[in-house]
């Protein structure tokens, strides 16, 4: 037992890795789907154990208040998505879009992806983190292209190329950080270890760190989906299997965001370095407003919500760019709520697309009439993502907008403009989807509502009540972020 607690980090990593191997050889898609769920659940439990007791930071692994947020969120959404995925692929098999052979690959890749993301979150080494994120990216690329349709391959290709360039830029940034660190902390592993880097950040050459941050921001920002680096994101979301869309939006973006945040913390430790805040706020605002405008012309339901993810990433990056306890808190909360809500939306959307046999918004009407539970779930989800109370995102947007307005009113104006534009666009599309004379198939669809409801319930509770422990924790993290 003690061994487990001491090596819990390893458990979080080894469970998905082992599962990936097992699932790759396991025959029978039902079994492998269950195995996927079981592995995800086990990882979640291990992560919760981590949450209960942080191990001391070692040379390779680091679990602190910041990344435990991400780890728990990651494993939780990973678990719920695996539950959703089990229902989803059932339908895909029936309609013949996927074959059992592909499913084996799919489940293995799912666990590889989880492994990559967990690794990126827990390692105490910027080089390894880079490797892990690359691994997760490659796994998702393969998943996006799994349908083998022309569109899916195209999307995967676009994703692959843009992500590769992003990864290359991030690596260059990582090397530069090392170069900046080496004269101070000495060469070797020391120069890439988080805890060491953060402790000595003040002594690093500020100019080099500035250049490094630009590369890192652009590199990992590509994965976050910041405009104008976002181009892969909508297509990858739209053409891959919906569970992957949920994971992409709910998790992978967060992991990349985590990397950006880590480096921002590093920058914050050095007073002479270029201010990361203005860069992040600017890019955040551009992302928000651009994505808001893009929402209006969307014809594909998954692409619509992919752009909404971009929009939210813009908000979150803006929040962290603003800094300060309130805005950082808002950013963290927004990120958590967005992960939960957006994956819930993708769960619903996946079933909607299966029920109607199409992803075209124009062909989906009157969902609340034809599929009431599904339609209303979508309504609640979209209202939540659009920032309506009493759902969680409202809380974070409330904090963000009001604190921004009090600090720098001129920034709040474009922020509110973007938020409103995005809201109006989402509402416009939502009303078309949910109301009016229903079109298309009316047959009920076998949907698993449990993951969706679980996410939305969490979001709804967070909208009216945040437990003091959570708040203290988030506040501490917000303090860490400076």
């Amino acid at each position, binding site marked *: 037992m003690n061994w487990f607690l001491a090596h819990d980090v390893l458990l979080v990593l080894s469970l998905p890795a082992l599962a990936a191997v097992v699932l790759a050889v396991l025959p029978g898609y039902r079994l492998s789907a269950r195995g996927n769920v079981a592995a995800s659940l086990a990882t979640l439990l291990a992560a919760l154990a981590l949450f209960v007791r942080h191990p001391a930071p070692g040379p390779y692994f680091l679990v602190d208040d910041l990344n435990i947020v991400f780890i728990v969120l990651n494993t939780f959404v990973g678990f719920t998505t695996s539950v959703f995925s089990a229902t989803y692929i059932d339908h895909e098999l029936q309609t013949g879009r996927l074959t059992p052979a592909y499913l084996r690959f799919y489940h293995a890749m799912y666990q590889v992806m989880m492994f990559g993301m967990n690794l990126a979150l827990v390692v105490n080494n910027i080089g390894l983190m880079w*490797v892990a994120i690359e691994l997760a990216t490659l796994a998702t690329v393969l998943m996006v292209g799994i349908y083998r349709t022309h569109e899916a391959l195209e999307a995967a290709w676009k994703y692959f190329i843009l992500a590769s360039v992003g990864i290359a830029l991030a690596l260059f940034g990582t090397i530069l950080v090392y170069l900046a660190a080496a004269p101070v902390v000495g060469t070797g592993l020391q120069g890439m270890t988080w805890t060491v880097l953060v402790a000595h950040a003040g002594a690093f050459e500020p100019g080099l760190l500035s250049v490094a941050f630009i590369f890192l921001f652009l590199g990992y920002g590509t994965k976050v989906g910041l405009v104008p680096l976002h181009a892969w994101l909508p297509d990858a979301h739209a053409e891959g299997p919906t569970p992957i869309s949920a994971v992409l939006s709910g998790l992978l973006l967060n992991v990349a965001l985590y990397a950006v945040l880590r480096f921002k913390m590093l920058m914050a430790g050095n007073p002479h370095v270029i201010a990361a805040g203005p860069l992040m706020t600017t890019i955040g605002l551009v992302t928000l407003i651009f994505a808001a405008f893009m929402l209006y012309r969307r014809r594909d339901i998954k692409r619509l919500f992919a752009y909404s993810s971009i929009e939210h990433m813009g908000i979150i990056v803006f929040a962290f760019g603003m800094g300060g306890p309130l805005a950082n808190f808002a950013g963290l909360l927004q990120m958590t709520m967005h992960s939960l809500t957006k994956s819930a939306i993708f769960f619903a959307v996946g079933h909607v697309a299966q029920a109607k046999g199409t992803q075209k918004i124009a062909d989906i009407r009157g969902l609340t009439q034809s599929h009431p539970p599904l339609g209303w779930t979508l309504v609640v989800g979209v209202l939540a993502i659009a920032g309506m109370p009493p759902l969680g995102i409202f809380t974070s947007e409330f904090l963000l907008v009001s604190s921004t307005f009090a600090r720098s009113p001129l920034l709040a104006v474009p922020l509110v403009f973007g938020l409103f534009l995005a809201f109006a666009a989402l509402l416009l599309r939502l009303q078309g989807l949910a109301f009016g004379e229903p079109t298309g198939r009316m047959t009920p669809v076998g949907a698993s509502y449990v993951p969706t409801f679980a996410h939305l319930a969490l979001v709804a509770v967070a909208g009216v009540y945040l437990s003091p422990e959570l708040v203290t924790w988030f506040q501490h993290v917000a303090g860490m972020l400076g």
Partner: protein
Amino acid sequence: MHGIGFDIAHLLAGSLVLVSLTMLYQDRLYALLNTYTLHAVVLGLAVAWQARLQDAPHLYITAAIALLFKAGIIPIALHRIVVRLGIHRAIETVSGIGTTMLAGIGLVGLSFAVMLRVTEGAALVAREDVAFALSVVLLGLLIMVTRRNAVSQVVGFMSLENGLILAAAGAQGMPLVVEISVAFSVLIAFIVIGVFLFRIRERFDTVDVRALDRFRGERR
């Protein structure tokens, strides 16, 4: 550190930039591939020299990868692809060679302006190497965005990545260099296989408006 060792490192890194500029100048696919082979060879030499300078034997592995994989396997594979796809005739660049070259020289200037000022604290070798590496990275990106052809874009990406390896090798005592170069090799292999598998004949430009009209339903 001054002395012949530094001069050779400097020379090799500078040559890499020069070869990058030469690649920028090529408008024939075969010539581009050949130049790239040279690029990889120079990289391999540079990394090997760094291994000797820093007394870091593991860097020899990286150098070997560069020589074998990048200067050997990949160019050959790309040659075959070019032949297979029948696109050996020409590369059309987006803007004229002259403008591209000017932009390239500007980028080299930019990278020196950025780097040399900020790396004063770093060891001299690393300092020069990093500036050259940044030039190579930027030039690689420039190649990517000025070529319409898929293969030449891959070549651009690979030269970009060579710049990264140069920087990594130049950073004294940096861990994980080998792992990173391996990882990148995998990545490149993926890309090359992708180009081959998906029969991306002419360009990465298949994701264009007309194609979407046909397939996506986003524009209907």
